[in-house]
Structures are given as structure tokens and as C-alpha cells.
């Protein structure tokens, strides 16, 4: 019995460790472009119900609608800066990268709420 409890505790610790490592990795981004890259990958895992043709603006709206927590007004400003870099040839900004990386981590872990047409979003 004790052995089983010990095994479960070890497993839980290992899972928590892996998740924490992922989070640290996701947060360790140097630029906003890298942070959005991490967000892109995490959406494929944590919110596959998002339509493929969504822009970042639409993605944010849908995530907000699905109950994902974030400072969305700040995220919108960050997106503006990112798009100025991506499509306007401005330098890659660094401000806001932690929030985007944090969002990526939360999405990868799974988020509460519901996607469109009642599709459940993966939750842990």
C-alpha cells in the first residue's frame, strides 16, 4: 500500500516537474516573435478547435470567449507591436513577451471553457 502511495507521489512529482520545466522553457523567450511562436505551438495542442484560418485577433477573441484568463487589453497592445514587426518591418519588440509566453503555457496545459459549437476545450 505504502509502495503504491510512494509510486503515485513520485509520478505526480515527475509530472509537475515536467510541466514546470515546460513553463520555464515557454517563459524563457527572448523576443516577442519567439513568444508568438510558442503560442502558435501551444494552440495546436491546447485549442485545436480554433479554425485554421483565424488571425491572431480572432484567436484572442475566441480564447477570451472560451474563458482563458489574461490581461486581454494588454495582449491586444502587444499584438499591435508584434504585427508592426511582422508586417510593418519594425524591430522585434521584447515588451509583452512574458505575457504571451505565459498564455502559451496556460493554453498548452489546457483551458476551461468551451470552444465553438459546444466543443469542449481540453482541461486537466
Amino acid at each position, binding site marked *: 500500500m505504502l509502495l503504491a502511495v510512494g509510486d503515485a507521489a513520485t509520478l505526480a512529482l515527475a509530472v509537475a516537474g515536467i510541466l514546470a520545466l515546460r513553463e520555464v522553457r515557454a517563459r524563457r523567450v527572448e523576443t516577442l516573435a519567439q513568444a508568438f511562436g510558442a503560442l502558435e505551438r501551444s494552440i495546436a495542442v491546447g485549442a485545436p478547435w480554433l479554425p485554421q484560418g483565424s*488571425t491572431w485577433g480572432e484567436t484572442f477573441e475566441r480564447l477570451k470567449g472560451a474563458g482563458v484568463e489574461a490581461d486581454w487589453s494588454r495582449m491586444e497592445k502587444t499584438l499591435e507591436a508584434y504585427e508592426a514587426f*511582422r508586417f*510593418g*518591418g519594425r524591430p522585434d519588440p521584447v515588451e509583452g513577451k512574458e505575457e504571451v509566453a505565459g498564455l502559451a503555457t496556460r493554453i498548452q496545459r489546457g483551458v476551461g471553457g468551451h470552444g465553438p459549437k459546444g466543443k469542449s476545450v481540453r482541461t486537466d
Partner: protein
Amino acid sequence: MDLRERVSEQISSVVIGREREIKLLLVSFLAGGHVLLEGVPGVSKTVLAKSFARCMGVDFKRIQFTPDMLPMDMVGGFVFNMKDRAFDFRKGPVFTNILLADEINRAPPKVQSALLEAMQETQVTVEGRTEALPRPFMVIATQNPQEFHGVYPLPENQLDRFLMRIEMRYPDPATESALIKRNLGDMDTGQVKPVVSAPELASIIEGVQKVKVSDEIIGYLATIAKESRGEARLSLGASPRAMVHLTHCTRALAFLEGRDYVTPEDIKEVAIEVLGHRLKLDQAAVLVGNASDPEQIVREILTRVKPPR
């Protein structure tokens, strides 16, 4: 107050609840294109077009299209001058900055075709003499839905010349109530004041032309075009001209939003109005009930084509 707000404020004094239509008209004007306003009679198509022209402070003329109209009624023609004993060219109403072609689909095809050269090349040719039209030049054509009696549908090549087709639907009940109240008093497009000077307008148009369209955005546009051409429910996809028009619109839209670069959101914002009227449904798909609305197909294409992110 920026240009869009100024235009919206002025037009709202006579037309209520048409903010999106006003924005699209402004985008088209700045993009150097022509607009087809479609809707049933009585939804303020003509008032909107007249108010918009007044707002822009440019020369404006209106032609009411009728079944007995001739091309020379629009472009002008040669008139014998008794004094000089020579033929003089008398300019028609097409020589203006904004031309309101009211109920364009009531005119026979030869008159509609006469507009083609003016719309595409900003010039008209009469009996071998070519006359340039003033710039900017914009045609705002209004038309009733094609199911109405006594209309000549515009051919595909003519439709492709229109930058946008803006569908004007019935107003919602709240807007309608406001509209009825407004019309209890005097409603006159004469109260709409110009909101932009000629030098400012020239500077804005120059600014629009400097808006950057990145290679990723161009790639996205090309993929949308390819998807429309490979769509089984369509017999006619988006033309290269359509994609060029869409690009021009996105630049104007980005400029109005205060940006000097185009984003995928800009494309999505105007794609329905720019592409919808140019696509032709495949009749077999219509007969078996697989397709009924080209605009819905554009929406589906935009949902599945991945934008640059």
C-alpha cells in the same frame, strides 16, 4: 478627429445606421475604386451616395439610368457649332469626380459598357477622340436586386470593374425608429458639409499608396485566389484584378486605422465585399443545392486558409 470620423459624423446627419457602408465607401474612394450599392428601393442608397460625395468636397454628378438611355447621354458627344461651323465636343456628366450612376441595371448593356472604359482607364473615347476624366474619379452605382422587373443584369466583366459591392439591407427596428423620427422634419443632403480639402485629400491618397504590403500578406492573398479558383462550387473564381483590388482596399483600410502596413485582419474585413460579386456559382452545384451564395463561399475560404501569423 480623423477623416473617417469626420465623414461619418457628417453623413450621420442625414443617413442613420450606415457606419459600415460609410467606411467601405471611404475605403473604396481612397483605394481609387468604384462601388456598386445594391439593395431594394428605399434603403437610402442614393442619399448615402450623394452625402458621401458632398462630404469629400469634390465635383459630383448624378445620372438616372433608364431603358431608353444612350451612351452619349453619359459620355457626351459632338455638337455642331453654327458660329465656328465645326463640331465641338460637349462633355457628358461622366466628367466629374464622383459619378452617381443611379439604378445602373435599368440601362441597356450598351450604356453599361460605355462606363467600362471610364471606370477602368479613367478616360472616354468618342468617335476616335479620347478625353481624360478628372481625378479622383469614382463611380458609385446603385442597383436593385436582379429579381426586379425591367432590369438588365451587369455582365461579369462589368462587375469585375467594381472594387466593391456593398449590400444595403433593411435597418434594424431601433435604427428604423430613429430614421422615421428624423424624417418627420426636413432631411436634406444639402446640410452635409465637405470635411476634407483638396490638398489634404491628395496627401491622404499619397499616404495610402505608401502603406506597406509584406510578402507574407501577398502570399496570403495569392492563396485565397488559388482556393477560389479551385473551389468546385464556383465556375468563376477571383480574377487577378480582384486580388489587386483587394490589396488596394486593404491599404486604404490600414491607413484609415492609422497603420502604415497591412495585416491579415484588413484582408478579412473587406474580402466579402471585394470578392463576393465577382464569383460565379457553378450551376450544377446550385441545382443539387450545394451552393446558393458566393459570399458564404468566400467566408468558408477565409476560415480554412491559414493567414500569416
